Each structure stands twice: as structure tokens, then as C-alpha cells.
């Protein structure tokens, strides 16, 4: 039987000499009707370029297809040559036979048009529907992606909907004309893990309903287990391995596939949690950081003159302590208040209430007056491109009115060596380093003042998966060596499992569960923790059926003077406790 899509020796290049700058170098695959192919790879592997070549959107992105053949079997059974097609022919294929969804739902919809008109456009283009018919079709399309209250939502503009909702709208647009092939380019990467689970469930369900084929592009090999029939692993523009799902996951042959499966953090329900440096049971240790009743509220005012009508309760009564040499991970979804907590600890936002105490280590003579330092999420944006590495590392010393002397220079050199960067880095500029190296620089900068606590706000989230693993290793080594306490803010359970001793789950500005990592991850007690953990994709959960849950995150806006009820806790052995619900 002829496959729906056949790609043979695809080559794509960029720039003025595309032949010399190929980023896809001879990729071949077949996709049968109703089949799902997952393309897995890290950034720069050529997976997205491959996807964009199929519907020839790459022509608009500066790429040029330099060789190969691509054939699509059309609905009437005729074969369509995607390589030789003219642009007008291709506009008849895009949207009608090949639908596509993208990574960033927030930017993928036109901000000035209502979502209704954007869905209707597909029906107008390929079905010739206009007016009331098109509106009715658009409403059905929204119903199909399980958006509640569809008729009213048609009149919304994209800024009025959340990221998860927008991705559903994108799916509705892509599937409006029942294409037989859906290309999904990292469709859940920008979304929270529970929202990701819902989108994955929706895609699986729609695929069952319509019998369409799908090409699913992702960097997360854990995610493919739930949806793919076949897997293709890409590295440096080439498909290094492809085959059936079970064969790739269970008996990977290529070293790179083995590396992706073994060395990269995968979630393992707490069994991979750290066992070193467990909390000293004796009470003689002084915490490196103690936070008591932290509250951060942002007053809401309708205009400059009026009084606050309410407040956003970003953080609403958070307590924890952090021992030297220990990692406390704060996990939660976007808007849960985890980053605000970190910023309040550093004094970057003013806390409304609550107290902090920071323990100063006695052993270290070089202990500075700034015992809390931070490493940020985006290593590209957090290093000043105009400063040399030497100036960047000197900055914390200068900022605390220290002198840059021989001792400082010696510390720079030793820290650079310690984080695994060459000694000649000092005179170089940030752009000469890769993302992983930059994050190592950020870590070195944070350690310049010999802090006792390092706040790591999504510090590995922007890195490729294999780089992530190495930076995590470095962090663990540094922690052992310097006795550092880490406050590790993350949404990624697999990463948290590798580095945390203790985990605090934060939801709507409050900690709902806290305890040692293995216990929280293997025996979650609070319903939100359970939901969060159930949503984490793992390679063991193959074709698992996700429940579609359209509940929204509760609003954090409270009336003026509102105080949450005091928390009641239930203990579950050790220091594992969860908030009583109800």
C-alpha cells in the first residue's frame, strides 16, 4: 500500500549557499495512514526544519530544499509531488491535507483577530463557507477540542485566553478541514505539565476519532511513549535511528538513542531521588535559610487615584527551612508563586509579611555579607554581552564594594576550572560560549561571593536535555564540595528528582505538600501533587489514557483584607506532611 507521506533523502540548507550549510542531511521516512511518527532530537538536530519542509513552510523561513523527494497521497488517492509543487498548489494542500500546530500558542495566533475569525478562515479557504455557516463550523471546531462555552469564546481575542486554551484553538484550526496529516512541532513544550497531559490526551483522542496521521516533534523522549507508533531519532541533521516505538525504547541500537534514554533525566516516581546528604536528624544544625509565614501580595488598583479594590495573593503564607548542604525543590506550575517566593527570598520583590533568617557558616572565613545568590533561567539573557567573563565574575565583588585583587583573580580562575571551563575564558565574551557553558559561568558568578544559599530559578530549563544532565551533575558536586544549600525552583519533575533532597509542592501561592523527595514523589498525598505527578510523561507509560480535565487554575485575586484560613497539616512519617483538603 502506498504510504500517506513518503520522504526520501531530504536535504535542507540555509543562507546564500544552501548546499554548503545543510541542517538536514538526507532524511528518509514513510508514514502510513493513521500512523504517528515521533521525531526526537535536541536543538539543532534538524527536527523542526524537517517538519517545516513537509508543507514547504521552510521556504518562508530562509531555508532552501536542496535535494530529495517528498510525495503526499491525496484524499482521492492521487500522488502529489511536494517538491515540485508551485506556491498556489501548496496553499491548496496546507490546511486542507496537512495541518500544523506549533510550539508557542501564545504567539502563534494573530493578536488582532478574534479566534472565531481565525478558525472561520480555514473553512472559508478550503470549504468555501461564509457568514453564519462559517461561524457555526467554527463553533463546532471549538467544541471538538473541548473548549467550554465555545459560542462565547469565538468573540475572544487571543490575549483573553490561557496558553493551554490557545493551543486547543490552534488544534481546532489545524484540524478544521480534517487534514489527513497533522504536524505537531513541540506542541506542549511551552505548557505546564498538567496542561501538557491534557493536550496530549486531546491529540490522542482526536486521532482516534478522525484516523489521521501525525508527525510529532519533541525533544522529550519520555513524551513519545504515550502517543507514537514509530520513532525517529535525529542528531546533527541526520536520522540516526528509526523504528517501532517499543524497539526504540527497549532495545535502542544507536549510542545517541541510548544516551537519550539513559543519561538524560527521566522521571522515575522517586526511585531516582538522591540518597546522599540526608537531613541530620539531630536538632543541633542551624538552617542555612529559614522562611516564616512569607506573604507577597500585589494590590490591584483600577487607576492611580482609587483605593486598592483587592490584591493578587501571589504567595500566601509559605514556611520552610533549608539546611546547609541540602536541596529544597519548589515545584509548581506557572502562576503558582514559586518564582515570587524565590524573588522574595532575594529581596527582589518586597514581601508583604513574613520573616527570613539566613545562617552564616562559621567554618568559612571568606563568608561574605551576601550569603544568598541566584542563578537565572535564561543563560543567554543573564550575562551582559558587552562584558568579558573577567568583568562578569568581578561584578559581585565590586557590587559588595570589595576590591578586585590577586585573591579575587585566583578565585575566578579556580571557580572557572571547577565548573569545567578553560582557563583562558576570562578574556572572552559570553557569545563565544554555548548555552550549557554560559550556565556554568552563571553558576561560577553566583559562587564568587562564597554564598551559603544559592537560589536556582529554573536553572536548567532552557538547556538541551543532555546538557541538563551534565549541569545537574556539576551542581551536585559543587554542593558536596562547598556545603551549599540550594533552593531549586522548577516545573520539571524529572530534573527535580535528580537534585532534590526535599520537595515543596506549591499551588495557588501555598505549599500543599512538603517532605523528603523519595517520599513525596513515590507516595504523593495531596490531590494536587498526585495530579501533577500523574501528568509527568515517562517512558514506562505507553499509550496511557489521560483523562481530559478542563478545570481552570483558581484565581489568585482576592478581595481587600482577605486572609486564608490557617493551614491544617497531616503528617506522613519523617518530615513528609500535606495540607488537609476540604
Amino acid at each position: 500500500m502506498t504510504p500517506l507521506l513518503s520522504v526520501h533523502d531530504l536535504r535542507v540548507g540555509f543562507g546564500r549557499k544552501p548546499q554548503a550549510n545543510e541542517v538536514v542531511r538526507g532524511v528518509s521516512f514513510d508514514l502510513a495512514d493513521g500512523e504517528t511518527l515521533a521525531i526526537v532530537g535536541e536543538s539543532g538536530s534538524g527536527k523542526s526544519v524537517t517538519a517545516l519542509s513537509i508543507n514547504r513552510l521552510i521556504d518562508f523561513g530562509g531555508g532552501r530544499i536542496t535535494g530529495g523527494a517528498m510525495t503526499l497521497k491525496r484524499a482521492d488517492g492521487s500522488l502529489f509531488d511536494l517538491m515540485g509543487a508551485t506556491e498556489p498548489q501548496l496553499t491548496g494542500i496546507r490546511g486542507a491535507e496537512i495541518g500544523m500546530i506549533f510550539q508557542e500558542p501564545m504567539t502563534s495566533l494573530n493578536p488582532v483577530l478574534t479566534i472565531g475569525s481565525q478558525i472561520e478562515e480555514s473553512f472559508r479557504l478550503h470549504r468555501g463557507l461564509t457568514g453564519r455557516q462559517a461561524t457555526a463550523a467554527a463553533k463546532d471546531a471549538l467544541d471538538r477540542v473541548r473548549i467550554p462555552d465555545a459560542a462565547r469564546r469565538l468573540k475572544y481575542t487571543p490575549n483573553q485566553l490561557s496558553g493551554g486554551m490557545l493551543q486547543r484553538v490552534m488544534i481546532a484550526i489545524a484540524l478544521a478541514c480534517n487534514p489527513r496529516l497533522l504536524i505537531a512541532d513541540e506542541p506542549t513544550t511551552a505548557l505546564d505539565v498538567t496542561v501538557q497531559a491534557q493536550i496530549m490526551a486531546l491529540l490522542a483522542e482526536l486521532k482516534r476519532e478522525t484516523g489521521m496521521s501525525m508527525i510529532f516533534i519533541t525533544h522529550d523522549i519520555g513524551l513519545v511513549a504515550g502517543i507514537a507508533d514509530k520513532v525517529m531519532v535525529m542528531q546533527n541533521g541526520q536520522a540516526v535511528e528509526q523504528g517501532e516505538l517499543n524497539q526504540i525504547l527497549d532495545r535502542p541500537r544507536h549510542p545517541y538513542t541510548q544516551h537519550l534514554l539513559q543519561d538524560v533525566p527521566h522521571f522515575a516516581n522517586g526511585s531516582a531521588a538522591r540518597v546522599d546528604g540526608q537531613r541530620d536528624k539531630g536538632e543541633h544544625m542551624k538552617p542555612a535559610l529559614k522562611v516564616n509565614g512569607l506573604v507577597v501580595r500585589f494590590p490591584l488598583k483600577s487607576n492611580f487615584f482609587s483605593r486598592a479594590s483587592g490584591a493578587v495573593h501571589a504567595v500566601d503564607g509559605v514556611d520552610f527551612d533549608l539546611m546547609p548542604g541540602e536541596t529544597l525543590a519548589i515545584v509548581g506550575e506557572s502562576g503558582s508563586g514559586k518564582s515570587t517566593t524565590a524573588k522574595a527570598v532575594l529581596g527582589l520583590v518586597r514581601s508583604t509579611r513574613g520573616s527570613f533568617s539566613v545562617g552564616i557558616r562559621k567554618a568559612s572565613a571568606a563568608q561574605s555579607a551576601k550569603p544568598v545568590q541566584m542563578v537565572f533561567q535564561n543563560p543567554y539573557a543573564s550575562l551582559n554581552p558587552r562584558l568579558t567573563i573577567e568583568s562578569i565574575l568581578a561584578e559581585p565583588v565590586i557590587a559588595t564594594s570589595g576590591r578586585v585583587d590577586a585573591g579575587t583573580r585566583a578565585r575566578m580562575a579556580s571557580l572557572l576550572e571547577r565548573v569545567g571551563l578553560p582557563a583562558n575564558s576570562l578574556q572572552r565574551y559570553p557569545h563565544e560560549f554555548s548555552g550549557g557553558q554560559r550556565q556554568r559561568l552563571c553558576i561560577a558568578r553566583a559562587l564568587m561571593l562564597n554564598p551559603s544559599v544559592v537560589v536556582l530559578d529554573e536553572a536548567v530549563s532552557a538547556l538541551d536535555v543532555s546538557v541538563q544532565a551534565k549541569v545537574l551533575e556539576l551542581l551536585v558536586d559543587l554542593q558536596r564540595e562547598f556545603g551549599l544549600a540550594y533552593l531549586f525552583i522548577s516545573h520539571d519533575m524529572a530534573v527535580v528528582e535528580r537534585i532534590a533532597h526535599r520537595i515543596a509542592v506549591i499551588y495557588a501561592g501555598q505549599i500543599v505538600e512538603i517532605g523528603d523527595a523519595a517520599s513525596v514523589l513515590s507516595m504523593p498525598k495531596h490531590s494536587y501533587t498526585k495530579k501533577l505527578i500523574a501528568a509527568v510523561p515517562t517512558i514506562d507509560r505507553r499509550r496511557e489514557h489521560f483523562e481530559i480535565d478542563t478545570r481552570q487554575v483558581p484565581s489568585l485575586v482576592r478581595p481587600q483584607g482577605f486572609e486564608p484560613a490557617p493551614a491544617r497539616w497531616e503528617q506522613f512519617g519523617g518530615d513528609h506532611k500535606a495540607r488537609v483538603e476540604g
Partner: protein
Amino acid sequence: MNYLMRRLATFPLVLLGVSILVFVAIRMVPGDSITAMLGTEAGLLTPAQRDSLAAYFGIDQPWFVQYWRWIGGILHGNLGISVTYGRPVLDVILERFPLTLELAVLSMIIALIVGLPAGIFAATHNEKLSDLGVRIAAMIGQSTPSFVLGLLIIYTLSAGFGVLPAMGEFAPLWQDPLRNLSQLILPAITLGFAFAASVTRISRSAMLDVLSDDYVRTARSKGASARSVIWRHALPNALIPVVTLSGIEFGYLLGGAVIVEQIYALPGLGRMVLDAILQRDYALVQGAVLFIAFNFMIVNLLVDLAYVGLDPRIRLGEQ
């Protein structure tokens, strides 16, 4: 609506600031209206005559008294009497304003009709020869002084071919529209040329930005045609900088275009203000500057309201 009221409430404050500035500034210029009016004959005045003239014009008082009287008059709708014209300032301004307004509107229409499509064309042919051509033309348009262009147009069209009358008594639009247009079209082209060049450059760069946005890729993935991608998806998102620029340029044009009015012998606001400054016609200068400032604020307000129409994410007056 609420927002509109609050914006309008700030107008008097701004006008108050402008009025003090212009009042002080024009009095810092050496010379006075009596000398300017009488020229060398001013030297023949006896001190007593000079004093009585000064008292007649009210310029014998300290400046804050003069200012207080002037502001008091404005609150009663009286901008004062022009020394040179011997008529109420407001009448003189309103007589000149229709021409200036018409010229500004015509220039803007020309600028948008030419500049917007040129900018879009250049953006969609990025880095091609035709793009380069448009960019060079825009560069020339922006760097040609208006008196050079104005003289060039007069020379080639009027003198060379004898088409379109460029001179003669000015006919207001409502009396003789055809004659009015034939008189104004050349000045409007002269002004619109540089304006169109700016519009071309800004719409080109705005379109280039927008065309690489994610939602444009989405539109293409739906199968939208090249035309629909440009006009329906990209252009509305690229219009905000174009509207901003057009608003500023239009606001300037409402203050009069001295050089172009001079070349085409048009009785507009620009020449009137220039003459008033040379004649030390304090009341007329002050009145005209306030009037121009007020127009500028109205244009700014309209631009902000246009943003709301263009982009649903913009909500005016919210924190």
C-alpha cells in the same frame, strides 16, 4: 469614555505650561512691538508718545501682570487683538487655518497612498533589487529639502509644460473646489513627498518584523494566499508604528509649513506665525502657539484612540 474625559482634563494643564513658555520666550527676544511696527520712525517718537502707545498695547506693565491679563482674557474666549492686523487674534488664526488643515490632510493622504504600498512592496521583496530601489527612493525623498523639491516642481510643471496654475489669489475649498485643489495639489505633493518617504521606511521595517512573527507562519500553514497573509494577517499588526509616525508628522503640518507656503505664496498658518514673530505681534504669536499646541494634543489623542481600534490588547487608562 472615562478615559477620554481624563485625557481632556489634562489639556488645560499642558496649555498652561505652553502659554508660560511662549509668553516668556517671546519677551526674551530683543526689540518690542512699537519699534517693529514703526521701524526707523520709532526714533521720532517722544518718550511721552512712546509711553502712551505702550500703555495702549498694555506692554508697560510687568510681565506677570501682562500674563495675568492675557490668561484672564483667554478664559473669556478673548485671545487678544493682533497689533499687525488690528483684528481679534482668533479671527486671524481661523481665517488661515482651513488652508493649513487642508494642506496637511492632502499631504497625509498622498503619503499613505504612496508610502504604505511602497513599504509593503519593499518588505515582501526583501533584499531583492526592487527593495533596494524603493529604499534608495525613500532615502532621496527624506533628504531632499522641500524648497528644492518645490522649486523643481514649479519649474518643470508650471514653467515647462504650463499645466496647473501655481500662483494667483487663493480660493477657499468651499468657494471654488476645483481651483482650490489645483492650487493646493503641488504644495501637497511637495510636502507629501518627504512624508511618503518616512511612511515607506517605517512601514517597510514594521512589515519585515511582522512577517517573521509566528502567527504569520500559522496563517501560511492554514493555506492562506500570499495576498491574504499580507493584507489580513500582517498589515493590521504593522500599522501601529505607521499610525504613530503619521500622527506626529500630521501634527507638525498643522503648525504650518513656512517654506512651502512661501514658495507657493499660500496664506497659511506658518507664514502668519513667522510674520507675527518678526513684527513682535505678541498676542498673535501667543495665540497661534496655543492653538497649534491644542491641535497637537488632539492629534495625539486621536492616535491613541486609533491604537485601541487596531490592537485589542491595548486598553487605554488601565494600569
